[in-house]
């Protein structure tokens, strides 16, 4: 469910009472609405669903998945 794809905000504008962004999805650009994520700014990576930005993506959050078993044993939590 919920197909959401990452894209990079190229520019932001206000038009017809809506905060909008031009987002690049890797060679494909589309106008996306930022009413759901008003503080998104050019350069941000955002997750897009049904023409709206849902969240800023934390590019640094990809850690080595194999560390899961070690990290849990050492008491660190991901939540």
């Amino acid at each position, binding site marked *: 469910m*919920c197909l*959401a794809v990452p894209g990079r905000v190229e520019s932001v504008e206000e038009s017809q009472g809506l905060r909008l962004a031009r987002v690049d999805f890797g060679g494909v650009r589309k106008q996306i609405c930022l009413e759901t994520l008003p503080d998104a700014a050019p350069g941000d990576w955002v997750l897009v669903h049904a023409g709206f930005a849902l969240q800023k993506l934390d590019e640094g959050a990809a850690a080595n998945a194999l560390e*899961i078993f070690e990290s849990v044993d050492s008491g660190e939590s991901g939540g």
Partner: protein
Amino acid sequence: MSLVDAFRDPVAVRELAAAVRARATRPWTLMEVCGGQTHTILESGLDQLLGERVSLLHGPGCPVCVTPLATLDRALALAARPEVVLCSFGDMLRVPGSRGDLLTARARGADVRVVYSPLDAARLAEREPGRRVVFLAVGFETTAPAVAAAARWARTRGLANFHLLVSHVRVPPALEAVLAAPGCRVQAFLAAGHVCTVMGTAEYEPLVRRHRIPIVVTGFEPLDILEGVARAVAQLERGESRVEIQYRRAVRREGNPAARALVHEVFESADRPWRGIGVLPDGGLRLRPAYADLDAERAFPDLTAPAAEEPLACRAADVLRGALRPPACPEFGRTCTPEHPLGAPMVSAEGACAAYFSYRPAAPLEEHA
């Protein structure tokens, strides 16, 4: 696209799968909630990499599958009216109502249009003041903010010809229903990553406390799902039960406050029937009184839809609860296929039945005990 490809890396997936197999010392049954996760699992064959002890049940997280028959029938009745433009996400076009689907309605002359965004439907209403535009608003909490934003914009533009046929659903009541069903074997959930991107994780904490089961908020790429499984297995092996976030790049505990505020302004919780499961208390959203004039059911009060009846043979309820694997259904692949679906889990791209039909060459007939 590096942000996606990294999470499909076959080497990392195989290594992590091996680690999961080694770590599980007892049988564990997990349920992935979201249809998109089911789709990835079956398409990539991830369930075949988990070994003998870890098994996955498929959950009810397919908003298309759980849209009530009555809602579909109302959409069809609206579409049949010459003054109405019925706008919908593409997912809904082939879902069977009592008599045909929206695609066949279009063949009969109904003005049915696919939109990518609910805002496109609202903009259409502004461009065509002589028509009444109705948007079929389905989806989980992931989609509700987009619909809420479109509703608010239509209000500020003073559009009197834009309406919503609302059928939004909420995930937490569905998880309660799965856990409450007799014979439930679910020991941990992989929660829906994009729903939690919006909603955050706070509403899962009471569930974890009450039922003492791990809930790992998981993404949709193969490595995400495997990592979600690994985290859930690690908790189970250690006898822990807490809410954990695997999908760290998108999910924060507080979710997206701006999106939630939009939803809160336009919608409120309501009891809602889930097709195949029944009425779930607080299981959906409805328009608040301040937005009632956008409600298609109020704007078209003389809407008559035929008495909705599900085909007796369709066992969507059991499939959505994880109690029946689709290939074990007697109708699977015989009277029920994507071209002639008996129920929604076969027609939706994310439905468990469609996923099995599409991807498993010859799944053995097994009743999930």
